[in-house]
């Protein structure tokens, strides 16, 4: 985006036409930076917790001296691995690598593995296609059939909707699979509303129908697909009627979807992230991708599997989810032993040494990680906590010392993406307000107090004058310099508009793997994408009378996770959390529209106004995630910390709740 600065203030944010994926305009979160950047609520000075729980301003020297003293003490008393480093997906950029590099210079630390966001889908894609990449965003306009599977792009990827519309203008068909009638499904001719967590059953039923009717691409399969015969035998294990019962969708809907997918090419399946946050997600996502494989919808314009495009992740050497896994051989310095999915319980379970000190940056685990109560307990059990933040989040409130964090406009960096394939320069154009310091400066100031220095430090963390040199050093292996990026977004080296056009799949067999021995070896799952019910939902299928509603916690267009929801300019559109419930479910509980309802299970409770909406599937309720505690909508009070079947993702969407009138 292009920003206008007048007298040191952001006054306008406008689109950059050169980015072909987003030429029309930023989303409302992007626009809201005009308030966010200059918000009176921004933390501008180091703060220290007082005995009464309030925070008082302290000087940088005081803050850094205290943090350094604590670090030294804990390192000396317990070893560096008693220091816990937690970072999530806030401000992005190459400089984010500095923090872990700092802990290595200190001697080490403990950190997390896995990820809250997307790893099961990434791993499913890697196991099946070999690499996480997809066609350029604008290629979707070439599709003749688009299936949005568990994805509400209108809220979570709004720029994709432009290409959907272009495709529809040219006569494309659109099917949406989602338990909710969404803004995206308004464009669809058919909305299939399966029971959440059962998408794998639906996909295999479609596969069975495609194979039975011969609506598959035999030529493509023969040349490019590994394990088709076993796959075909496996899908015959369950009838379409049985699958339809499990998914709770009409057989006719299965047949219609199969008929379209079997007869229209090219077809693209755009999958969302929500459905890969169940315990069966790896298998679910593999089942979905297999539909692209057997219909020959990979490697052509307008065809493919659109999940995550990691073509800009050219810096680390890996662009697959392996980076999220604990290393095969621990390096003795950084202990990768806390599952992000089970953050609270794993933090408390660490021994030899137990965790004593936490450093949190770019994240708000008190709001966003499963099992809020366990996460809070784990943080409170530590002897010292430092949170680097821009705002007083639920996590910042747990800190002993809060250090003010820079905004993305205050330090130059280079960013990639996970939908389009542009590398972009993000120039530092604003002075840091108040006493805000960049994380690089914070780490260097701590380093000097901890007697860390020399060339190792300069390589790990640039000094204030060396920033451009440091960034250029990262870009050098790609034959790029910052100057190359100054004119606008640049496609990442080697990126392709149509992926797998050469039919080369970097899997063990070199083909699309419907049978994956790696899946079995690495994750202990069935080499075939056999469908299973996720744990809590299985109880629902059997009609557990105690907790019969499935709670969905989707993202909203108004926030990115727990960011932006504190701004007035956002709150005007989304003033507070509410629980969306089907009219019949509300009537059965005597709940009226707008009335306060208790949403609860054995893990926790929320009290929220009910929104009675006929667009949600009966048996489901929905509360958007990302609310803060003070707003009354910490949805993870109700979720449980468990991992997905593959890739250490968080299976925190599989939650049964009951709703009663408050």
């Amino acid at each position: 985006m292009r920003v206008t600065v007048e007298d040191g203030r952001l006054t306008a944010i406008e689109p950059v036409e050169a980015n072909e994926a987003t030429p029309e305009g930023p989303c409302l979160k992007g626009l809201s930076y005009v308030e966010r950047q200059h918000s009176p609520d921004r933390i501008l000075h180091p703060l220290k917790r007082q005995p009464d729980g309030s925070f008082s301003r302290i000087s940088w020297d005081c803050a850094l001296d205290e943090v350094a003293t604590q670090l030294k003490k804990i390192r000396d008393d317990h070893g560096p691995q008693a220091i816990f480093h937690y970072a999530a997906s806030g401000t992005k950029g190459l400089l984010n690598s500095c923090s872990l590099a700092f802990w290595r210079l200190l001697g080490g630390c403990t950190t997390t593995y896995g990820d809250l966001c997307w790893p099961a889908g990434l791993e499913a894609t890697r196991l099946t296609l070999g690499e996480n990449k997809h066609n350029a965003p604008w290629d979707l306009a070439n599709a003749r059939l688009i299936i949005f599977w568990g994805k509400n792009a209108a809220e979570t990827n709004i720029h994709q909707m432009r290409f959907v519309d272009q495709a529809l203008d040219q006569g494309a068909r659109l099917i949406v699979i989602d338990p909710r009638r969404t803004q995206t499904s308004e464009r669809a001719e058919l909305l299939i509303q399966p029971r959440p967590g059962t998408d794998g059953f639906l996909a295999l039923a479609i596969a069975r129908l495609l194979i039975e009717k011969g609506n598959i691409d035999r030529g493509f399969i023969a040349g490019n697909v590994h394990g088709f015969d076993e796959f075909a035998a496996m899908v015959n294990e369950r009838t379409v009627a049985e699958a339809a019962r499990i998914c709770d969708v009409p057989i006719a809907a299965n047949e219609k979807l199969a008929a379209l997918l079997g007869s229209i090419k090219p077809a693209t399946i755009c999958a969302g992230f929500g459905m890969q946050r169940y315990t069966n997600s790896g298998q679910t996502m593999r089942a979905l991708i297999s539909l692209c494989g057997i219909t020959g919808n990979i490697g052509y314009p307008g065809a493919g599997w659109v999940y995550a495009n990691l073509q800009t992740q050219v810096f680390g050497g890996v662009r697959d989810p392996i980076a999220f896994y604990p290393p095969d051989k621990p390096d003795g310095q950084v202990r990768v032993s806390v599952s992000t999915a089970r953050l609270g319980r794993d933090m408390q379970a660490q021994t030899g040494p137990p965790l004593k000190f936490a450093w949190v940056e770019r994240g708000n685990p008190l709001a966003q990680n499963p099992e809020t109560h366990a996460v809070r307990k784990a943080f409170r059990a530590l002897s010292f906590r430092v949170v680097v933040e821009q705002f007083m989040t639920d996590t910042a409130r747990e800190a002993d010392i809060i250090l003010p964090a820079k905004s993305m406009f205050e330090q130059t960096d280079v960013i990639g993406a996970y939908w389009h394939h542009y590398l972009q320069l993000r120039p530092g154009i604003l002075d840091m307000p108040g006493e805000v310091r960049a994380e690089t400066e914070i780490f260097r100031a701590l380093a000097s107090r901890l007697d860390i220095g020399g060339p190792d430090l300069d390589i790990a963390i640039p000094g204030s004058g060396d920033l451009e040199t440091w960034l250029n050093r990262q870009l050098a292996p790609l034959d790029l310099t910052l100057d190359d990026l100054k004119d606008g977004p640049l496609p990442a080296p080697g990126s392709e508009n149509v992926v797998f056009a050469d039919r080369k799949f970097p899997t063990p067999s070199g083909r699309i793997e419907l049978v994956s021995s790696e899946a079995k070896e690495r994750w202990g799952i069935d080499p075939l994408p056999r469908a299973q019910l996720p744990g809590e939902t299985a109880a629902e299928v059997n009609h557990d009378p105690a907790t019969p509603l499935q709670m969905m916690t989707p993202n909203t267009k108004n926030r990115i996770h727990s960011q932006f929801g504190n701004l007035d300019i956002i709150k005007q559109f989304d003033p507070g959390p509410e629980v969306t419930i089907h009219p019949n479910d509300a009537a059965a509980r005597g709940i009226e529209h707008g009335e306060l309802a208790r949403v609860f299970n054995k893990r926790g409770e929320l009290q929220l106004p009910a929104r009675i909406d006929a667009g949600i599937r009966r048996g489901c309720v929905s509360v958007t995630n990302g609310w803060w505690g003070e707003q009354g909508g910490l949805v993870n009070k109700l979720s449980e910390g468990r991992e997905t079947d593959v890739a250490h993702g968080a299976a925190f969407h599989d939650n049964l709740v009951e709703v009663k009138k408050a």
Partner: protein
Amino acid sequence: MSARPSFILDVNKCTGCHACAMACQIANDLPVTQPWREVRTFNELHVPDVELMHLSLACNHCADAPCMEQCPARAFRRDEKTGAVLIDADSCIGCRYCAWVCPYGAPRFDEERGVMTKCNFCVDKQHEGGEPACVTSCPTDALTWGELTDEEHIQDVPGFAQAGIGPAIRIEPLRSKRLVPEMTHPPAMPPWRRLRGKITPHITLVHEWTLALFTVMVPVLVGVFTAWRFGGAAPDWKIFLGIGVAGMAMSASHLGRKDRSWRAALHLDESWLSREIVLVGGFLGVSSGMLVFGGLPSWLGWVAVALGFITLAAIDQVYKVTLIRGAGPLHSAQVLGTGLLVGAVWNGLPLVAGAVVLVKLSLYLARKNNRSRLGLKTHPAVGWLRVAAPSLGMVALVGDLPWVAMVLILIGEIIDRGEFYVEVEIPTPNSLQLDELDARPEAHAVFGG
């Protein structure tokens, strides 16, 4: 008319993301409580088989802009180059009448400054060759902008009033093939009627009670003065003038900028509100003069009578833009009827008064009956009082208790006028969307458990 800058909204592409509304606030430095552009959603609770669509609307800079035409203070002007309708904050008296006459909900009251504000079409950007901020920021290309002729200004979508005032906007309707998705889950009816309660009314009795009293006081004075000219008893000029001055003060008290009240007389050639204000002043002046100075020529009295009834007609004309559900073109709280009734009672004419009461109560009961059928609140206790008071008043009039009759008649009139302010609505895009939904048979479907 030749082509002029116009908004183009393609509801097929709009996802209701609010980027346009936010970009407008940012570009114009507006507080969040005072948006110039709003996104209004049709069918947000998902009535089955009814489409969902968003209407992003600001000011449509109409060719025949009623805000500009009806502003009593001439606070509006048109930008020649772009056709933009602009409010001059230094001229606005804060009477809010432009918000009443605009069917698109564009003018907003700025509590802090006491004046109205609204979308200015980003004229400054346009003069520099740019486009409005909302258009620049639409991420889906749904809101664009171009030079369109009147023939191209088509807007056939729920919530957009067809007022014939030349709005500079083209709305591409939903393409039928993507009207509503076929859903696989059993349908149910959401409580969409509840959404009416979310609409902030433009007019409320709590806010406009001074206007309610003013619009009873003026017809009382007109009625009494006219009765006197027809041979009735002369009213006490001090009380007469006192009521008149109090009424004027009350009507001025709701202005955002009382210091600029005088500007209300500036737009006699077009604005009914301006005419009303000047006519009230004229009637009061001449009629009080007649009462105070006995020797004035009698034709001047007839001039005052004429002025009085034209004033009452003007008041009713001012409220013509409002909507009272259940009422036809005539309704019982119109001030012309009040004037006639009070005059007849003053002169002890039971037949004339009885006829007016009969017409008024018939209209009143018909409206209440209609509102009850529409599922709207009817306040029956108040209704009985409104019917009983003038009925007893007629008995008192026949029984030669003129003052009792007058008090009872006035109680009925005050109640009716008060209820008018409770029931009256200004149609807005939101209310029109709900009216449209109400008119769809799908919104009244009954589904099995």
